[in-house]
């Protein structure tokens, strides 16, 4: 085997059968800065968790997030006491912020699964240092998303009626309804994501158990590690399970947003009833999710000095994904207009006219600016490699994807078939407080995660270290 550039990371022993190292086609910027060893990687990542000194910045961030979380708790209490009437939803717009935010959050979650499962199957080494964090983001985003349909039912304490269980009423859920498909899709997604995440954490829990200074922490991490001892037989089954889970999570993540899009596409509302909704929604979800991963990793790597592990290469790759999925989304917007026009249906044509020039037109054009125009910066390498520009573009996309769901839901509903039933929709203070509150929930969980669990998969990072390379005698 040819001697390689010292800067190029080895990956012979990584998760997945990677036999030959792939030369990087475009440039030499590494996915792990040189000079790291097994112990330095272990040390650096685990100390973020094990240090006794909690950074003051963490307290500030956690404090603000927790404050927002209390806003959520207050809103939910009021919602349950008074009813969903405190939200702005009414006929004709029966789906407002609750469904917009549900779709927004669940879409964000998709990037985590994409990074951890699809990029694993595609043997993209660079996923290694961001997958743990992205999976956590998925989990918390799904938790935030799940609250909306739950509370939108109006009587969340009867939410279990949506599950098929033997009951004295002799009833079953309506299995022919996309809303019940959604219940199955989202609950399966939440369960599988949580377990996938936990399984990924087990070897790292063992590291923390062996390194934790105080007894209570050793005990808790020890419990969570379940007695993991790094046995070769265990690793073999572990990797098999991990690979199979990645293979299962890949169609799962595609199915989740497909089914979310069925909530719209299966109805007959102009602007919703379109066959291209599933791929359009999945691309939009990946787009939104990568934007959120960028929004979170850029401050994280700066604050915890993780530039060695989350390098410019990672940010640049995410910028490329943002551009690619952004172009798919742009194509979908164009096709949406084309289909409406080509259908020759007066309601479809009116809907498009209303969407682009009606009372909500500013939202539509702002969405075009955020989702199509802003990501075009990613064509240029100097922007893709600049954390500041990436962060700003990601923010545009976060806003743009929220606007996209607003436009799809509200402009389709507020003026449909019968002009006498038209109406306008705006979110009330409680809609906004609920939205801000779920951001608080999401951020609070993320801050706790960063403090108590390893933000980067330690054992997978070890496989990227040159020292981890196994040299076979017959190769020398």
């Amino acid at each position: 085997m040819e001697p390689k550039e010292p800067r190029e990371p080895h990956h012979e022993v990584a998760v997945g059968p990677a036999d030959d190292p792939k030369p990087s086609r475009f440039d030499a910027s590494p996915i792990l800065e040189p000079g790291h060893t097994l112990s330095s990687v272990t040390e650096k990542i685990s100390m973020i968790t094990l240090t006794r000194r909690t950074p003051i910045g963490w307290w500030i961030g956690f404090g603000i997030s927790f404050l927002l979380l209390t806003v959520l708790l207050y809103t939910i209490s009021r919602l349950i006491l008074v009813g969903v009437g405190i939200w702005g939803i009414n006929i004709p717009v029966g789906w407002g912020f609750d469904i917009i935010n549900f779709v927004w959050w669940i879409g964000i979650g998709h990037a985590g699964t994409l990074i951890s499962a699809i990029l694993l199957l595609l043997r993209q080494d660079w996923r290694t240092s961001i997958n743990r964090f992205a999976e956590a983001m998925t989990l918390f985003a799904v938790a935030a998303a799940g609250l909306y349909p739950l509370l939108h039912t109006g009587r969340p304490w009867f939410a279990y009626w949506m599950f098929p269980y033997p009951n004295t009423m002799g009833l079953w859920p309506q299995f022919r309804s996309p809303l019940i498909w959604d219940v199955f899709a989202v609950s399966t997604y939440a369960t599988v994501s949580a377990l996938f995440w936990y399984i990924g954490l087990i070897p790292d829990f063992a590291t923390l158990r062996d390194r934790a200074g105080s007894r209570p922490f050793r005990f808790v991490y020890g419990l969570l590690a379940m007695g993991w001892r790094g046995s070769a037989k265990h690793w073999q089954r572990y990797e098999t399970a991990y690979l199979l889970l990645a293979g299962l999570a890949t169609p799962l993540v595609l199915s989740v947003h497909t089914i979310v899009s069925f909530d719209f596409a299966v109805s007959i509302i102009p602007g919703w009833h379109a066959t291209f909704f599933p791929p359009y929604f999945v691309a939009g979800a990946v787009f939104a999710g990568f934007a959120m991963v960028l929004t979170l990793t850029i401050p994280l790597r700066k604050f915890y000095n993780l530039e060695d592990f989350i390098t410019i290469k990672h940010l640049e790759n995410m910028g490329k994904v943002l551009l690619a999925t952004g172009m798919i989304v742009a194509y979908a917007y164009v096709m949406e207009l084309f289909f409406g026009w080509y259908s020759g249906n007066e309601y479809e044509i009116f809907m498009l006219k209303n969407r682009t020039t009606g009372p909500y037109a500013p939202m539509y054009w702002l969405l075009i600016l955020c989702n199509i125009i802003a990501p075009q910066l990613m064509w240029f390498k100097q922007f893709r490699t600049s954390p500041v520009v990436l962060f700003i573009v990601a923010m545009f996309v976060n806003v743009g994807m929220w606007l996209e769901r607003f436009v799809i839901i509200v402009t389709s509903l507020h003026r449909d078939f019968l002009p006498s039933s038209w109406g306008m929709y705006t979110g009330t203070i409680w809609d906004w407080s609920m939205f801000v509150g779920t951001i608080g929930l999401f951020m609070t969980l993320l801050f706790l995660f960063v403090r108590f669990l390893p933000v980067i998969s330690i054992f997978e990072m070890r496989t990227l270290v040159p020292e981890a390379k196994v040299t076979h005698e017959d190769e020398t």
Partner: protein
Amino acid sequence: MRKKLPIHGVIAEFSDATQLLRAAEEAHAAGYRRMDAYSPFPIHGLAEAIGFRGSRLPMIVLAGGLIGGLGGFFMQYYATVISYPLNIGGKPLNSWPAYIPVTFECAILAAALAAIFGMLALNGLPEPYHPVFHVPRFEFASRDHFFLCIEATDPKFDPEDTRNFLQSLEPREVSDVPS
């Protein structure tokens, strides 16, 4: 019931992955069969080197997926055709295309649960106690060191010979694992 042995085995510590893999291969070649290797990250070929033949996990996952999918489909079939048939405009009761999303999700859920709990069960986890944890330096197995343990249940095991054999592999240290 296993008979009580004075020690669990003899363990050798290595400082890199290549050494461990070579040591495992040599131990297997020397006729040892009951052994285990410990490393801080997965090493390809190590499980095979200690004579471990692939696991049954993929079959368990396949079975889980099939049970989940069939169970999901027939649950819906039972609900809409047998338990609570509802005639809507003469449409067929067994409207199978509408059952596909839930069937698919049930298949994935059951397969994923089978993968996770199957892996844990085959690995015998959770297992909070294991003799190797008695080895003082074993905590480095989750950090940057590599261990090979030849267990006392091996027919070829002999406290002295095995120790000398492991010593010949140029490890960092060899020690007994109390049972």
